[in-house]
């Protein structure tokens, strides 16, 4: 980005998606060419078009520095804050050199680039009991809590409620009732907060809800979309881990069994055994799982998909009956990860976490200054050294405690 600074203004063409609810006409495209330095933002370009050519262009905006969360839009199809997207970068990602700006997805359009966030985003936020239920008695001074825990929840506190993740959520496209990435990240903000007294109630609620934490399909779209590195999907995965591993919540969505099945199949075989995954997720985590009535029911309802997969050659009857094989030493390496995780000191509550929040993404830290939270110890133990063998220099350790899958279709 630095190289574009100091360059003189140049023309940029914007193609804006316009919609006037009072006209009775369908949405249409509107093009304007403005002049600005290439590192200026798409928002500044839209405002210049509005100031010079057409004051009726509708967009919410205020701070111009990616903190108020007003100007969520789609730039060339990808969700973004208009104020946080450089013009030269936007032009590079444009199909035909014209920067295309549309309202966010998954929410009804009110006018031009303005969407109805109340109808979707805020409704979902309200779903997760979005306020602290403080431990009693309330102390006279501050609650005494570990330093790391507050840094940790500050990541979700940094959410500016712009809706970019909601705009791009694939699971929500399929299931509009899915609580969604922003609201579940908000839920973590309380579940991760040691001052909150209702962790179990919150987790159980979100685990049992069939549009809840297990509805996420793990597609990473929200992680890419978020302009503030909140990592909503990561927060959802943390909710799942805490619900299953710490609170032993067995949910009606088979989320807990699915995770257990996923983990044990990989431990036993080194690779996923897809044909066994579904019956075990529903019937229980053993070879006998497929004989459980729940699994039978699920198998019958999945027959069309199974037949289709067979016809297209995606699976063969023999392949389905036997697990994939990998070389012995590879299997050993996989199993050593499990041994390390299982062997950790559980009494300390320590959990290996992939948390990139404080790390940033630019470069490996100088060796004399270990960057905080590369491995965060959940219960407040100080940042531990990376588990040897799992991380190479400059990389984050893999996230071995819980190879998540998803129960969503």
């Amino acid at each position, binding site marked *: 980005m630095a190289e574009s600074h100091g360059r003189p203004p140049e023309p940029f063409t914007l193609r804006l998606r316009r919609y006037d609810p009072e006209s009775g006409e369908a949405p249409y495209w509107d093009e304007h060419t403005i002049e600005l330095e290439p590192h200026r933002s798409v928002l500044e370009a839209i405002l210049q078009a509005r100031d*010079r050519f057409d004051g*009726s262009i509708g967009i919410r905006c*205020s701070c111009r520095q990616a903190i108020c969360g007003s100007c969520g839009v789609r730039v060339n199809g990808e969700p973004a804050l208009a104020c946080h997207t450089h013009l030269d970068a936007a032009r590079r990602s444009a199909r035909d050199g014209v920067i295309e700006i549309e309202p966010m997805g998954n929410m009804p359009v*009110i006018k031009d680039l303005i969407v109805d966030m109340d109808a979707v985003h805020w409704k979902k936020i309200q779903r997760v009991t979005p*306020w602290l239920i403080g431990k009693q008695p309330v102390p006279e001074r501050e609650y005494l809590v570990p330093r790391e825990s507050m*840094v940790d929840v500050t990541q979700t506190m940094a959410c*500016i409620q712009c809706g970019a993740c909601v705009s791009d959520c694939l699971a929500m496209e399929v299931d509009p009732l899915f609580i969604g990435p922003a609201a579940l990240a908000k839920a973590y903000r309380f579940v991760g907060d040691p001052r909150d007294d209702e962790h179990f109630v919150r987790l159980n609620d979100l685990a049992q809800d069939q549009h809840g934490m297990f509805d996420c399909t793990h597609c990473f779209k929200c992680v890419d979309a978020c302009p503030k590195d909140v990592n909503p999907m990561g927060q959802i995965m943390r909710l799942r881990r805490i619900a299953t591993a710490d609170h032993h919540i067995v949910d009606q969505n088979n989320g807990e069994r699915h995770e257990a099945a996923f983990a044990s199949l990989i431990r036993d075989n080194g690779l996923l055994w897809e044909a066994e995954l579904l019956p075990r997720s529903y019937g229980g985590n053993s070879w006998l799982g497929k004989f459980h009535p729940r699994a039978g029911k699920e198998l019958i309802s999945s027959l069309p998909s199974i037949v289709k997969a067979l016809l297209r050659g995606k699976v063969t009857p023999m392949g389905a009956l036997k697990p994939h094989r990998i070389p012995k030493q590879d299997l050993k390496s996989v199993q050593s990860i499990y041994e390390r995780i299982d062997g950790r000191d559980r009494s300390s509550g320590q959990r290996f976490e992939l948390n990139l929040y404080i*790390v940033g993404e630019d470069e490996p830290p100088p060796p004399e200054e270990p960057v905080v939270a590369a491995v965060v110890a959940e219960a407040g133990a100080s940042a531990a050294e990376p588990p040897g063998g799992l991380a190479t220099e400059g990389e984050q350790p893999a996230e071995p405690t819980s190879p998540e899958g998803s129960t969503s279709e």
Partner: protein
Amino acid sequence: MPAHDVLIIGAGLAGQRAALAAARKGASVAVMSKVHPVRSHSVAAAGGINAAISLDDDWHSHAYDTVKGSDYLGDQDAIEVMCSEAPGEVMELEHIGVTFHRNDKGELDLRAFGGASMKRTAYVADITGQAMLHVLYEQLMKHHETVELFEEWFTTSLLIDEARRCCGVIARDVRSGAMEAFKAKNVILACGGAGQVYKPTTNGLIVTGDGIAMAYRAGAPLMDMEMVQYHPTCLVETGILITEGARGEGAHLLNAAGERFMEKSAPNKMELASRDVVSRAEQIEINEGRGVGPNGEGIYLDVTVVPRRRTLEALREIVNLGRDFAGVDITREPIMIRPGQHYIMGGVKTDADGRTAIEGLYAAGEVACVSVHGGNRLGANSLLDTLVFGRRSGEHAADRAAHMGMPEMDSGARLLEDAAEIEAIIERPRDGRRVSEIKNELGELMNRYAAVFRDEDGLQTALETIGRLKEESQNAWIDDRGTVFNQDVLGAIELGYMIDCAEATVISAIERKESRGAQFRTDYPERNDEQWLKHIDIALNGDGAGGPQVSYSPVTITQWQPEERTY
């Protein structure tokens, strides 16, 4: 017609805090805001909130620092209220969920800030305002049964009855364009400052002086309007704010010769002198040819002296701002900054309970002038101001409401008048100037003549030009003819608000013939306590036909006599 005990205009920290306080007292409460509450500009406050919570601190010390920071123009009784109530207010916010940074013992951590004699700024990384605003909004969601929210409603005027009492407002639903009268026993203005009067400014596009202008037009006096704070560290190109927390964590300011020039004007506090002092020192370096950058119009802020890990954890937001808006990795190289308009110390004159000169009308936060900031606000005192005086206004208004009936007033005429005015703006022929042109000229004008350094000639030029812009704004035209989200027509109304604020600022700056706090007159470079240790009030009397009237009010001094101010 909606009717409430307490109607709050603005949903930033002051407004939301007032709403919670009034609701806890059992009042029926409504909050009206032209944007969704979490978009309010409080969200941009970065560095933290001051409170003497450390066991070796004392609120008197905080109060003294504030008085000194104000260049003795702050009212000491109000400052004592603010500083003595600060610790309780911060603890309250902690209890409802603000994720304040902790020290290794798990207690609130405190960072250094400008003009403070010790570390007393509690913080959430460098998103303190955002964290507080979002947590207060969580509370409003929790209390949705007692606090009614009118989000994206734009207030066009205050309803004042014949006995000069405020009994409601006229507002426009931004989404539908519908106009409605809102009856209320009390109205609390909590709609922020007027930063958009300047260009560039650190303030958001929504910060257009609405509340100040509405109160002024209704006859309430404004106070200290000449006192406009320039923040020492804003990005050169865009005016985006780099938090004072950076200097609090130890960052240096360097001129073109690589010198820490603050040792000339503040040998003890260096970069952590109060903001007016630092901004002036920077402007002198720039004016005398020691600035950095291609045009020599910047100063280097060197954050690389702060340990990188600490920067990434506690100054994360400005790492991102540097990268995204200036192309600089602040953990590796210095970043170019300069002073930029940030805050107005002045506003609607109130007492320590938020009461204005109009019965039933309160003001809290940046819209108000209590005056706790006097000539210069200390960093991290504004969040505190919003909370303490937001709460006090809410409580006082709720108490007042408990002892009175709903005012009877015919608002029909005013409703029609406001609706007709909006129609007239929409219908204006395109033979004048665009609203956006006038707004830009106003901003550049103010940034040139009513900035860090001022003089009579410049201020007179500004006043004359404002007169012309005011006329031009009467027939400035817009494009949008619709009713749904017609932001264009609201922009025309906001322009009127901004011009009123600009005029009050310039008239007050001309009036004050001395240098104090943020007002530095090159033609009167000394502080003159004998003649000017007093507030300048400005008001439209009667129907406003006589134009703005200037008067004075005394500064309240309790225990700290004016002294020479050195850092």
